[in-house]
């Protein structure tokens, strides 16, 4: 299972980075979100053990899932939504200012 998860994380990273490198800035935003999903996937897979029941204190003898990575992912999901919205508004500003959403035409950051 570890190998499967590693390959999936790697593949999603590859796809995310490829998308981030697109000229179309909307695709770059999508790429960013795929990257953040990949990171969440990594966090999820890094739990110390696999559980059978959810992480509740209920006296069950079955193993519960690892709560720590879940808590990390929980906040990460919400924050990445905020970050994505911010990036989207930047994309919109680029579109207003440059009248284009092509990363190669956005060149005013030059020296």
């Amino acid at each position: 299972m570890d190998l499967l998860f590693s390959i999936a994380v790697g593949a999603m990273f590859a796809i995310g980075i490829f998308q981030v490198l697109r000229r179309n800035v909307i695709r770059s935003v999508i790429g960013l979100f795929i990257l953040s999903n990949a990171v969440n996937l990594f966090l999820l897979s890094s739990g110390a053990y696999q559980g059978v029941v959810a992480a509740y204190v209920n006296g069950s003898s079955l193993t519960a899932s690892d709560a720590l990575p879940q808590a990390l992912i929980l906040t990460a999901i919400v924050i990445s939504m905020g970050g994505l919205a911010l990036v989207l508004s930047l994309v919109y500003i680029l579109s207003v200012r440059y009248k284009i959403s092509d990363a190669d035409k956005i060149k005013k950051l030059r020296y």
Partner: protein
Amino acid sequence: MTLVIVLIACLAGALLALLFKLGSFERKFSITSLSLFLALAPGWTFIWLLGRAPQVIATGVGGSQLEWSFAWLPSLGLNLSFYLDGLSLLFGLLISGIGVLILVYTGYYFKGDASAWRFLAYLLLFMAAMLGLVLAGDTITLFIFWEATSITSFLLVAYKYKDESARQGAFRALLITGGGGIALLAGLLLVQSIAGSSQWRVILNSGALIRGNDLYPLALALIAFGAFTKSAQAPAHIWLPGAMSAPTPASAFLHSATMVKAGIYLLARFNPALGNTDLWFWMLSLVGMLTMLTGAYLGLKQNDLKALLAYSTISQLGVMVMLIGQDTEIAFKALVVGILAHALYKSALFMVAGIIDHETGTRDLRQLGGIWRAMPATFSIALVGALSMAGLPPLFGFLAKETLLATVTHPSVPIVWDWIFTLAVVTAGALLLAQSGLLVAGAFLGKRPEGLSAHEAPAPMWLAPAVPAVASLLISALPEPASIAGLLASAAASAFGAKVKVSLALWTGLTVPLLLSIVAVSLGSLIFYFRNRVRNRLMSILPDFTFNRAYQGLLSGVDRAAYLVTRTQHGRLRSYLSVMISALGLLLLFLGRIPVVAPFIQAPRLDLSGELAVLRLFSLLLAVAAALATILLHRDLFAILALSASGLSIAMLLILEPAPDVAMVQIIVDLLLVVILVLALTRIPREQRDRARYYTFHQGGLSLARDIILAAGAGIVMTAVTYQALTSRPRQSILTPYYFENALPLTGAKDVVGAIVADFRGFDTMIEISVFAMAGIGVYTLLRYASRKAGDRDERSPAPAGQALKSLGIGGLNTSPFIRSVASAVLPLALVISATHLLLGHMQPGDGFTAGVIASLAVAFWYVIFGYDVTRQRLRWFKSPYLTGAGLLLALLNASVPLLLAQPIFSPLDYGAMLGISLPAGMKLTSALVFELAIAISVVGGVSAILDALGHPKDDDVDAIRHLQEIPPGE
């Protein structure tokens, strides 16, 4: 009493100068009277210090009874402390004594120039800084005042800031002395850490410890570098001639008695702690000798009176550094005598140069001459000063040189070097004598050039330089002035670290030093006699070469390097990204030493034996495939939907984990995301999107190949990193069992994930919701800004409640009545679900984040179905600033309540139990619940800001919608 009083006097003076301007007193008082009045500050300091002299002299070596300390940062052992011993006293007296004269002189130099209050204020600030420097009782205080002198002297040198050369000179001085200051700070910190204290008292008594440390050479080099730059040692001496563009009173003060002596003071101060080693001896002797010769040689080439004086100062500073390097009693005697003598004659000569400039309008030796009849008083002062500088009897300067010559014949150095040093000193002495002669003869004697008008300066103006000149005459002429000898002996003892006997007798018999002195004088007289020929010859040797060239070269080199670095900023964003990604990947590979190939070669067989493993495999495949689809799908909308599918697959994995809380949030956020992305997409003109899509799918083969290679490389690295991390992780968690055991007893929660988020890591969560709120505000601000750029109307208040608006969905499309009634029903339902999640969150799945995103999703649904206007009209409570602010404030208040009960911040509290409220089973009114509520509110606030900004239609849409709305239904 307290030493700090001395500083306060000068600072008060500076303040007074400022008030002179602010209070418009310039109409009532002249600048001269202000200056004379301000002279009281250093005057008082001088008298105060003089009053302490007997006490200091009586104390002897290695201690001071006069200390004052103020605990500043006691936890770091940092104090603001002052300390008075013989060495500080000598410098303090010189600074304040010459300060008085300079202030008197300045009053006449700037006579009638009401704007000179600025100069006076700078001067007094500098005085305070300088006094603080020599009275500092620990390294940190010393460093602060050290930098203060650099900055105030910058202000003084750049006083005539409209003059290009003044600005350049000031800048160069600041750059060089400031650079030295940084080195000094590092050195001081090193010494402090070795000695274990920043106090002089401790440092001076732990010399053996410091010298024995491995870091001693580094500390010494850094401190010496600081001292050398400040005291204009070659090759850092170049700033001093440049600083001559300062008004002459500043030059007379800074560059004779005070600032340039700061480095000398520092070295003398550190001698007991750092000195008496071979490194110390050779470093100081060689640098000092080089400086002495450089100054003496270059001075002879100058035509400007002040430049000539500057170079002779450099030469004298070299002598002093050389003396500190010798660890003999007589060297320190020579040092203190030299410091006093130099301060006296050099300040007098600078002031004379200022008078000449003031009265004739030039300081160029080629345009001066024969004015001694017109300015008899000035001439006499110049003569006395120059004789002292030349080291001729019966002046004080003679004594200084005499002791210097005695030093270098001392048999403590290898015999060859003994000869070299002696030769150097004799040569420099001869050159200095020639310089002095040149000064007097060039300015006052000879033929007076046509059209040169000259008249005597007002009496106070020449009286100021007369005082040090006469003192220089008297000290050596009077029979054995015991008090001055005692003061000098005390100063020398502080620097030497042992008792020093100082006698000021002129005639000590026919000794070697006297013979050497005679040689130097004869040689100097010869050079003076043939001065024109010598000078012409000198001018022809390397006429263009100065150290300045090297300095300029260095500066332009820095500029060029900066330019080259900037050239890499070509503005191609995707190339930047590629570089960053490759660098990061390589860094990971090489620093992390991650095996990339090995795990796949010895690949374990696919293990699908675990529970639900097939479902997991399926979900993983789906997540990757959907992500891949975002690349392949041409239409942006489809790509967004694919992205959402990928996110939902991850949610599936979360369910399989099982992690119900997180899965719920993931699903809802994924849906919200689609809304946000679609709202954003509709704001970008279609034609623009089409063009971007065209570029994306018609990319050149080469750049496509680059991207694919980069992405594949990154994927492989990440796979390797993940595999390494997953296979080497411990199968036994250290933290999780703790959370499991303590969730119920400590926080009263059964939901461990919720307990971690709201309690164990409550502070993190609070920061995270702040970040989310900030992102929301950021979106809002950015889009408002963009709207204004695009020429939209600025303020958009929701339509009044009564006005009937037609519901129009995204893009002004009509929505069906069915969907509208579903949406109307969904919102209250969502709010109820949210509330349930909140209240029961501690016992069952769900928490503040879930509650927040559920409510937000329902509102987002409204934005899609009803459109911006109707949503805003009907949901008046949905206002981001209020929600965000209320959420964050509530979180903060809730976290601070325990403080009132004398418990640490964020401590869990059970309000229900405290207030005796009984609640249904499964509900608890705890601080965690309040915190969850705060999280939910601020999440809703953040999302509402995002929706409000992105859902806000652009004006062209608005007009279209308004137009549609005016048409009554049914037509």
